[in-house]
């Protein structure tokens, strides 16, 4: 039996990048660019990926280990101001189970030498926490792989 519970949380992360707001924004708005850094587990087959970067458009990504748990990311872009702001809502499913629903705001500010990015997530986390640790571990492995891949591309 599933024990029902909710947990609300808000967190903010800031980064300063040595790139113009236009370049940082493009890394979020261009499917190819975003795929290069944002997704974990390149070894997992991506069975579906819809990326409609416009207000009202959606991003839908289904991935997961072959024959294992389906990890489903579903987002709707609510507000887009080029080079300045992106607001999207997303939920995460593990198989049929919805584990979180979040509102995410990304702001881009031009600063000396680059761009300050402010990432704010407001979310409700649902029912199951026990799978999260495994998922995050997976993310870490995926990011390491991506790092290697990018280095190889640059060397080529």
């Amino acid at each position, binding site marked *: 039996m599933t*024990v029902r*519970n*909710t*947990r609300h*949380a808000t*967190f903010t*992360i800031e*980064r300063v*990048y*040595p*790139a113009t707001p236009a*370049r*940082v924004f493009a*890394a979020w708005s261009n499917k190819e*660019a975003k795929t*290069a*850094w*944002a997704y974990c587990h390149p070894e997992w087959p991506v069975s579906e990926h819809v990326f409609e970067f416009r207000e009202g458009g959606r991003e839908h990504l289904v991935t997961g280990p072959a024959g294992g748990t389906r990890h489903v990311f579903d987002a709707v872009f609510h507000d887009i101001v080029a080079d300045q702001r992106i607001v999207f809502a997303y939920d995460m499913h593990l198989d049929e189970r919805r584990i*979180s629903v979040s509102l995410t705001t990304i702001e881009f500010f031009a600063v000396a030498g680059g761009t300050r*990015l402010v*990432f704010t*997530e407001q*979310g409700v*986390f649902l029912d199951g*926490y*026990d799978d*999260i*640790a495994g*998922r*995050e571990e997976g*993310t*870490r492995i995926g*990011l390491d792989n*991506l*790092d290697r891949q*990018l*280095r190889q*591309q*640059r060397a080529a």
Partner: protein
Amino acid sequence: MLNYQAPLDLAFQALADPTRRIMVERLSRGPASVSELARPLDMTLSAVVQHLAVLEASGLVRSQKVGRVRTCRIEPTALHSAERWISERRASWERRLDRLGAFLVETDPTAKPPRRKK
């Protein structure tokens, strides 16, 4: 992992109530008696004692009666497990944003910028 689930559920339920969050916040600054806990709250002492019972059942708070005074203190282990889940989500975005930084450097069209003097 299943062993972990039950206490965590109780902790989340306990923290879902604003009054109990105020009490936990107060106790996070140090132990307090029941009447000290009740002072900022607009409710009867018996209501405060009921909230305290929920917090104790969740494992977030322990209390001990010495003489006529019941002293409450926070139980850091339970609180830590409740926060862990959220901090992991945050950490995953932190790593992703670090990856974005690396990506921006790797794809910089003006790679190896000349070091100009000011």
